[in-house]
C-alpha cells in the first residue's frame, strides 16, 4: 500500500503542493492560484487536483502538513477577535506605551500601531507578585467575579489575554483568573501569558499573549474547519500545522497557540532549504528567497536553521522562538526611481502582483527589477512552464525614462537597477551572518523563490561566497519543507542563577521538570515509534548584563541532563566569543532561561523519480548582459534536460517551471546525484 505525505503551503498568490510517496520516494508537485477570501478553498481544490493529476489514492495520504498565512494576514490587516486584556493594577497602559520609542525618529507623522485591545477593554485587577514569585498583594475572588461581569458586559469580546506582572515566575494568579473566565464564559477564548511565553520582560510577554488572543477565535476556527474538510478528501491523513520555530504541531495546539504560526510560510522554506542542502551533503547554507515584493534570507548552520527570539510583525511585537528570517523590501516587482538626492533607488515600493512588472503586460508601467532582468536577457522571453508571457518592449518602455534621466544607456540603467537590488539583498545577508558573527564565505548560498536564481551569482560574488546550490524545485521549496518537517515543541523554564557548582542541583531539577513535560507531550502527540530527540539550551549572560545569548549545552535522545558548571561556563564563553569576537574569561556568568526543544522524527524519504533527462536538447542562444562590457551569446537550457552528472560551463540561462537560474561566464554548474545544481564561482 502506498503512503503519501502532502505538504501544502498557502502564499498570497499561489497555493503550492508537494507530495512524496514514502516507499518509492516518488515526488510530485502542484501549484494553483490562492483564494485569499477563504484560503481553505484553494487547499481543498488543490488537494483534489493533485490527487487526480498524479493518480494518488486520497486514502493513501498518511500525513497532511500545512503552512499557513492566516495568522500573518489577520495581523497585517488587523482582522481578528474583539479582545480584552486583564492585567495587574497600575499597568493597563503598559502595552500602549510599549518600549516608549517611536518607529522612525525623524518622521513626525508615523506612530506605532494602537494596541489590539483598546484602553477601555484593558482591565486591571488588584494583585501583585514580586520578583521572587512571592505574593505581595493577594488576589480576591470577589475581584475576579467583578472582572467577569465587566467582560460579560462587552458582547464584542470573544477572546481575553491574561497578563500579570511576574506571572512567568508564579503563574497562580493568572491561572485562577483564566479558570474562572473559562468557567463563567465558556464561549470566550482565554490566552495566558505564563502559558504562551513564560519569560521575563513584561511588554514582550504581554504583547505576544495579546496577539495570541487576537488570533485565537479566527485561527482555531479556520484550522478545525480545514482539518474536517481535508478529512473528507483524505480520511487517513494526520494533520500537522507548521509553526514559525520550524516544526509541526497538532491542529489542537495550533488553535491554542496561533501566534506560533505567524511566520509559518517563510519558516517552511528554511526547513526545505536545510533538507535540500542535506541531500547534497551541504550543511552550512544561507538562503535567498526572492519573491515579488521582498526577499527573505536565513542562515542554516550544520543543517539547523538559526533561531530568533523577537520579531515585529506589522508593528506588533512577538517574542517566541522563530526561525531567524530577515526580510528586505527588494524583489522582482521592486520599483526603480530617482530619489530626492538624484541617485537611483530600488524599492521598497513594489508593483506587486497587480499591476506587476511592466514586462508581464498586466498594466504595470513603472520600471521594476524584473523589467531590468528582461532587458539584460537574463529573464528569457519564453519561460519553460509557459504560464506567463513576457513582453520585452514593455520592459524597455518602462526603463527608458530612468536611463534618460540618468543619461546612461538602457542596458546600463538595467544593470544599475539589478545592481542596487543585489546590494540590498547582500545587506540582508550581512545582517544574518556577519552581524551575528558568521563569515558568509564559509557558507553556500541557496537561492529559491521565482527570482532567487536570477540574482544568486551576483549576490554571492559581492559577499565573497564561492558556491551556490540551486535546489531541484526552487519554486515550491516551502511546500517541500513541509513534508520534511518533524513534530516539534519548545519548552521554557525561568531559572535565574549564577553559574556555580552549587547552583547545578537546582538547574538539574528545572531541567528534569522540562524533560517530564516534554515526555508527556511526546506521549500525547508523537504517534508510534518516532525517533525522539531533545535539545537543551540556556539563555545566559554575564552577571549585570541585560541581554542574553542562547547557548546550546546538550542534546540527545530519551533522558537529558544539565551538565556541570564548568561545562556551562565554557559553552557560554565560546558562544560569546563567536558572537562578539571577545569575551571576559573571568566574568561572572548567569543563566536566565532554560529551554528544551523536543522533536519527534516523522517518517521521511528522499526524493526520487524527478526529471530523468536523456540528452541535452537543442540549444537556443540569446545575447545576455552580465556586465557593462556588452552582451555575451548565452545558451538557454531547460533544467529538465540536465541529468545528474551534467557539467556545464557558463554562461548559461537555465529555466524550469517557475524559476530561472543565471550562470555567469566565469562560473561552472554541475548537477549532483540529488539533482541539485551546484554552481562554483571563479575567484574574484
Amino acid at each position, binding site marked *: 500500500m502506498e503512503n503519501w505525505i502532502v505538504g501544502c503551503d498557502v502564499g498570497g498568490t499561489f497555493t503550492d503542493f508537494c507530495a512524496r510517496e514514502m516507499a518509492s520516494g516518488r515526488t510530485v508537485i502542484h501549484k494553483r492560484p490562492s483564494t485569499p477570501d477563504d484560503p481553505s478553498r484553494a487547499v481543498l481544490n488543490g488537494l483534489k487536483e493533485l490527487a487526480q493529476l498524479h493518480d494518488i489514492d486520497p486514502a493513501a495520504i498518511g500525513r497532511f502538513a500545512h503552512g499557513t498565512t492566516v495568522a500573518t494576514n489577520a495581523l497585517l490587516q488587523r482582522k481578528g477577535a474583539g479582545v480584552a486584556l486583564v492585567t495587574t493594577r497600575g499597568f493597563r497602559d503598559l502595552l500602549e506605551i510599549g518600549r516608549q520609542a517611536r518607529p522612525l525618529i525623524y518622521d513626525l507623522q508615523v506612530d*506605532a500601531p494602537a494596541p489590539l485591545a483598546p484602553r*477601555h477593554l484593558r482591565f486591571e485587577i488588584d494583585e501583585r507578585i514580586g520578583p521572587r514569585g512571592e505574593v505581595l498583594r493577594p488576589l480576591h475572588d470577589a475581584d475576579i467575579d467583578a472582572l467577569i461581569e465587566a467582560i460579560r458586559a462587552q458582547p464584542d469580546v470573544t477572546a481575553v489575554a491574561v497578563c500579570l506582572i*511576574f506571572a512567568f515566575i508564579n503563574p497562580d494568579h493568572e491561572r485562577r483568573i483564566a479558570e474562572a473566565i473559562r468557567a463563567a464564559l465558556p464561549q470566550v477564548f482565554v490566552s495566558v501569558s505564563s502559558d504562551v511565553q513564560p519569560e*521575563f520582560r513584561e511588554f514582550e510577554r504581554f504583547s505576544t499573549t495579546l496577539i495570541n488572543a487576537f488570533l485565537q477565535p479566527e485561527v482555531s476556527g479556520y484550522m478545525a474547519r480545514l482539518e474536517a474538510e481535508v478529512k473528507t478528501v483524505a480520511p487517513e491523513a494526520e494533520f500537522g500545522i507548521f509553526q514559525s520555530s520550524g516544526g509541526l504541531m497538532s491542529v489542537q495546539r495550533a488553535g491554542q497557540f496561533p501566534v506560533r504560526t505567524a511566520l509559518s510560510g517563510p519558516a517552511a522554506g528554511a526547513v526545505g532549504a536545510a533538507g535540500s542542502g542535506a541531500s547534497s551533503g551541504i550543511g552550512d547554507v544561507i538562503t535567498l528567497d526572492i519573491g515579488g515584493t521582498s526577499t527573505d534570507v536565513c542562515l542554516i548552520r550544520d543543517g539547523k536553521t538559526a533561531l530568533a527570539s523577537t520579531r515585529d510583525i506589522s508593528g506588533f511585537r512577538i517574542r517566541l522562538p522563530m526561525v531567524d528570517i530577515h526580510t528586505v523590501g527588494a524583489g522582482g516587482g521592486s520599483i526603480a526611481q530617482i530619489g*530626492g*538626492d*538624484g541617485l537611483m533607488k530600488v524599492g521598497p515600493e513594489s508593483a506587486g502582483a497587480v499591476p506587476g512588472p511592466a514586462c508581464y503586460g498586466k498594466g504595470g508601467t513603472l520600471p521594476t527589477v524584473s523589467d531590468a532582468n528582461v532587458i539584460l536577457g537574463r529573464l528569457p522571453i519564453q519561460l519553460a512552464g509557459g504560464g506567463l508571457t513576457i513582453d520585452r518592449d514593455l520592459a524597455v518602455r518602462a526603463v527608458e525614462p530612468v536611463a534618460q534621466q540618468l543619461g546612461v544607456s538602457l542596458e546600463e540603467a538595467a*544593470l544599475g537597477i539589478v545592481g542596487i537590488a543585489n546590494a540590498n539583498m547582500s545587506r540582508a545577508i550581512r545582517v544574518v551572518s556577519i552581524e551575528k558573527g558568521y563569515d558568509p564565505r564559509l557558507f553556500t548560498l541557496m537561492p529559491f523563490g521565482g527570482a532567487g536564481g536570477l540574482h544568486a551569482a551576483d549576490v554571492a560574488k559581492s559577499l565573497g561566497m564561492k558556491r551556490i546550490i540551486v535546489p531541484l524545485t526552487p519554486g515550491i521549496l516551502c511546500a517541500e519543507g513541509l513534508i520534511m518537517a518533524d513534530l516539534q515543541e519548545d519548552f521554557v523554564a525561568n531559572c535565574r542563577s549564577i553559574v556555580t557548582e552549587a547552583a547545578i542541583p537546582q538547574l538539574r531539577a528545572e531541567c528534569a521538570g522540562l524533560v517530564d513535560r516534554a515526555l508527556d507531550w511526546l506521549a500525547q502527540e508523537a504517534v508510534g515509534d518516532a525517533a525522539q530527540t531533545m535539545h537543551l539550551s540556556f539563555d545566559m549572560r554575564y552577571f*549585570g548584563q541585560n541581554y542574553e545569548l542562547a547557548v546550546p549545552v546538550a542534546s540527545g535522545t530519551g533522558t537529558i541532563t544539565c551538565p556541570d558548571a564548568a561545562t556551562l561556563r565554557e559553552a557560554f564563553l565560546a558562544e560569546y566569543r563567536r558572537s*562578539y569576537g571577545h569575551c571576559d574569561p573571568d566574568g561572572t556568568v548567569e543563566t536566565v532561561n532554560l529551554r528544551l526543544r523536543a522533536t519527534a522524527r516523522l517518517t521521511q524519504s528522499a526524493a526520487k523519480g524527478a526529471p530523468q533527462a536523456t540528452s541535452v536538447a537543442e540549444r537556443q542562444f540569446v545575447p545576455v548582459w552580465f556586465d557593462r562590457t556588452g552582451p555575451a551569446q548565452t545558451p538557454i537550457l531547460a533544467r529538465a534536460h540536465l541529468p545528474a552528472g551534467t557539467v556545464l560551463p557558463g554562461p548559461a540561462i537555465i529555466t524550469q517551471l517557475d524559476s530561472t537560474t543565471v550562470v555567469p561566464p566565469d562560473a561552472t554548474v554541475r548537477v549532483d546525484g540529488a539533482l541539485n545544481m551546484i554552481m562554483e564561482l571563479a575567484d574574484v
Partner: protein
Amino acid sequence: MSEDGIDPISLEIAWNGLKSIADECFTAIMRSAFSSNVKERHDHSTAIADARGRLVVQAEMALPVHLASMGGMMKELLALYAGDIGPGDIFIANDPHVAGGTHLPDINMAAPVFEGDRLVGFIANIIHHADVGGAAVGSMSGGLDEIYKEGLRIPLMRLYRRGKCDEDLLRLLLLNMRLPDERRGDLNAQIAACRLGEGRLQDLLKVHGAARMDAIFDAVIERTQLRMRKAIASLPDGTYRFEDMMDDDGAGTRDIRIVLAITKSGEEITFDFTGTDPQVKGNFNLTWNATQSAICYSLKALLDAEIPTNQGIFDAIRIIAPAGSFVNCVAPAAVAMRANSCQRVVDCVLGALAPVVPTQVVAAANGANTSAVFTGTDPATGKMYVYLETLGGGMGARYARDGKDGVQVHITNTSNLPVEAIELEYPLRVEEYSLIPDTGGAGRQRGGMGIRRVIRPVAHTCEFNGVGERFHHAPWGLFGGAPGASGRFYLLASDGERTPLSSKATRIALCEDTCAVIETPGAGGYGKPEERALSAIDADLQAGKITLQEVRTNYSQWMEFPLPSS
C-alpha cells in the same frame, strides 16, 4: 556620469555599503555592551567620517542629539593630532568645551582608517555611559553648577597607539567612574565596534581605492547639502520668529528665554538666537554642537525625514548664537541636562515655522527628557546600585492626527527598562506605569498624554534625583489648540500624603514606605477644541483618556449634542 565623477548608480551602491557599516557597528555595540543603558535603551550612536573629519553617514538608529557630538569631536581631533595619526589608533573624548562633546556621559571614540599611509576616514561611535564620576551618582543630577562637578572631563586623548592600549589612561578613567566593571564592558564594546568598522571600511577600500572613496565621501555630502537646500527652497521667503522659556536651571535661574528668528531667502536659511538669555549656572546649557543637533533634527523632521544625516545638512544652514549665551555656552558652564534644552530649541523651530508648514508641524510635545535616577545600597548584597531612566510623555498633536500618548519625542528615542528587569536588578518596586487622563491638550486633534511612573524602595532608604522640564511653562498648542498639562514630581506617603518636589529634585531621601511619583508633561493640541469630532471625544471618554470634567471645560459641542455616554 555626473559632475562629481561617480555615476548615480555606483554612488547609491557605495553609499548603501557605508550605511551598512554604520549599522553593523551600531548592532555590535548594542549586542556586546554591558550596561542596560545601551542594551535595553539603545542610548548610543555610530558614524563614519572622512579624512577631513566631516560626518558622512550615521547609523539608521543613531540618535539626533549624538550627531553633532561626533562631528564636534572630529574637528578637535584633527586640530590636535593632524599628521600624528596612525593605523590602529583609537581616540577618546567627552568634554563639551574642548573636545566637541555635548555632555560628559557621552564618551566618543574614533578610529582612523588608512590605505597604506593615506588617511581615508574615521569610524566613530558614542555611548551614554551610566556614570562618569562627579558629584552625583549617574553624573546627571540637577543642581550641579559647573562642569567640574558633573564628572571626569576627558579632552581628546589617544587610547590606542598603533593598536596598543594606553593602560595607564584607562586606569585613570576607570578610577574616576563609579561601577568601573560596567564602564570597562561598555568601553570594550566601543573599541570592538571601532575595530569592526575599520575592517569593513578596509573591505570597501579594496573595491574603490582611497581616491575614489574620497570622491564618494564628497559626493555623499554634496548631494545631501543639495537635497537639504532644495527642501529649504520650498519654504516661502521671510523671517519667522518664536520665543519659548525653560522652567529653571535647578541653580536659581528661572524662566530662561530662548529667542529665535529664522530668516529664509532662496536656498539660504539662518537661525539667529540673538536676544537669548546668557548661559546659566545650572547644568542646562547648550554647547554650539548641541544647538546645531537640535536644528538639524527639526529641519529634517519638518521638511524631509529621508535626508541623510551628515555634514551636508550643517553645510546648508547658518546659525548665529552669541558666545556665552544659553545656546552657545562657554567653559566652565555645566551641561549635563542639555537634552531638555535641545527639546526647547526644537520647539522654537517648530513654533517659528508652524505658519508656513501647517500640515507637517506638530504642537509642542512634552518638551523634556524627564530623567529619574534611583541610587542606594542593595540590602540583600550590600552593593551600590544606580538605576537611571528617561521617560517619554505626550507627542504634539498634528494636522490630521492626535499626538501619540506616552512616547519619546524629537531628539531622543531611548527605550524604557522593563518593570520586571527593574525589580529583578534593583531593590525597587514599580507600583504604577500609566498614561495620565486629561494631560493631552484639547484641540481638533488632541495632544498626547503624559506618563505616570510610581516607584518605591524595598526594605531600605534610597536617594531620588529627578530632572523635569515644562513643569511651569506648559507645552503649547497650535492654531487654537490648548496647551498640554505640565509635568510634576511628588512624594506619596503610605497614608496618601503628598509632598511636592521641584522640577529639579536633588538628593531626595526616599524611605521604604514612600513612593516617588513621576508625572511627565502631556503635549499641546492642534486646532480649536470645538472643531473636534464628537466620535473622537466619545472614543477618548470611553477609553478614559479624558474625563467628563475635561469635556465640559474644553469641548462645548459635546454639551450641545450629548451622545449616550458609557
